[in-house]
């Protein structure tokens, strides 16, 4: 029993992601770009792990690999101890439903031809009876702070904050317990950022959610994360608790990032 509790939800082991492409008029030459270089980390249930780094440091590639959109070149991604590459189709679907992304551009993550109700409803498992679907849907909308009046609205009729909440509700509808938040605050104004952050905290406590927060904004990371991984050119250059990283960063690059965010006094 004790072992089960201590087992990480996600365990990334020696992960390497390489993007390779051919060169025009030269079939033998292949250009390879390493997005993630020997990355290992784990995330436990109920924890918020932030991955920070500048653009092109490999944060999103890492998230895409966990979501199954990018195939790792080498290394393993284990979900509750099982390598996701060894899962059967049914198990893989279950895994997919437990891990949900919240993209930076939430407007683009919603089907323009679907209403809010349809979009959130798509998250429910097929086994959920139709009669229960509507009640659950309305409950979810209230939970994420959406007005029921927008049930039949299309994404183009919503503001940025509402779209983000619809995506959040859809993710929760699947019963996901691990959310990958890919720069969720960058397209929001300060007021919406604060509201969304408070909502994320509230949901984390009420649903025992686990977050993988990808961000270059260290201010939001400080307020939401428990641990931080600092990524540079596809490599982890520093990791530690939020207090450790912000109080005494060991790496020069991390120090620079913290300084730029205005958190550490010059």
């Amino acid at each position, binding site marked *: 029993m004790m072992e089960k509790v201590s087992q990480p939800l996600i365990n990334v082991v020696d992960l390497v992601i390489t993007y390779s492409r051919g060169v025009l008029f030269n079939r033998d030459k292949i250009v390879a770009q390493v997005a993630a270089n020997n990355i290992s980390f784990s995330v436990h249930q109920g924890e918020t792990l932030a991955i920070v780094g500048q653009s092109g440091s490999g944060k999103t590639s890492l998230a895409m690999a966990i*979501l199954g*959109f990018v195939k790792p070149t080498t290394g393993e991604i284990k979900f509750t101890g099982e390598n996701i590459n060894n899962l059967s189709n049914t198990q893989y*679907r*279950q895994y*997919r*439903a437990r*891990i*949900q*992304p919240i*993209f930076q*551009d939430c407007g*683009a*993550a*919603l*089907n*323009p*031809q*679907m209403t809010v109700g349809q979009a959130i409803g*798509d*998250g429910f498992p097929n086994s959920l009876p139709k009669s229960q679907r509507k009640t659950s849907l309305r409950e979810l909308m209230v939970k994420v702070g959406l007005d029921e009046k927008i049930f039949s609205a299309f994404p183009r009729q919503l503001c940025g904050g509402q779209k983000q909440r619809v*995506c959040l509700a*859809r993710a929760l509808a*699947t019963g996901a317990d691990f959310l990958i938040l890919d720069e969720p605050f960058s397209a929001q104004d300060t007021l919406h950022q604060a509201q969304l952050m408070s909502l994320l905290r509230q949901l984390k406590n009420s649903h025992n959610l686990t977050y993988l927060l990808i961000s270059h904004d260290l201010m939001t990371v400080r307020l939401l994360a428990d641990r931080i991984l600092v990524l540079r050119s596809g490599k982890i250059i520093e990791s530690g608790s939020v207090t450790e990283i912000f109080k005494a960063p060991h790496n020069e690059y991390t120090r620079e990032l913290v300084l730029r965010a205005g958190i550490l006094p010059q």
Partner: protein
Amino acid sequence: MSSTFKSIWRNHNCRWGVIILLPIFFVGLAGVYLTPYDPIRQNLNQVLQAPSWQHLCGTDFYGRDLFSRLIYGSRITIGLALCATFLAIFGGTLVGLMAGFLRGWTDRIIMRTVDIFMGFPRFFAVLLIAGICRTSFGSTVIVLTLFSWMETARLVRAETLAIRESLYVKSAIALGLSHGRIARTYILPNLLGIVITSATLLVGTLIIIESSLSFLGLGTQEPSASWGTILSQGRLDPIGAWWIATISGLLIVITVIGFNLLGDGLKQLRDESKL
């Protein structure tokens, strides 16, 4: 929905397309009540009458009322073009969707088949098959469909490839939805704009091909009337019976312009993301 119709009406090309096509469709559909004469019955006492109040568009070599025949012919010409367009668009969308969504070998096989079909000059291929087969409404529709689905398939494939990479499809995949459901509810509804535009432009082309086939005696056969067969009759005496070729030819041109204007307008709206 009403905003879509408003956008269509506000677009200059669309509006003119609708203004041209609406009366043609109305007259075609309500033809039975509008035609004062039987379009097939011959009246040798009324041969080659010039347009008058009695015969609005004159009569042909067999004394048949041209106005009635043109209305009757609109059903055949436009009906045939619409049927072939529907089948070509349906087939092209299905095939393009499969190629773009499944990619890999399915895509390669489908696209090479498209290339082979596109290698034939459409009109000559249709002409050849129509010459070999026994001509009827059904066979003409099949022949026209057979050489008209490729453009739609290519367009739909390209659009599907782009939509497949969109964040909302990625989100659907992350939700664990099946491929069939993603194709049906996430990709297909977003292809509607391109499919409608493609269909509108195709109808015009098929009207010309059908009329050409009938003109050459390979499409609709006498005594049935299509605009092509009427035009074909007009060539027997283009000066003395000028109204036969002129009126039927004008009708073909105006209808094709109507469909092309509508298609161009819908394309403009789609490019402006209003459709």
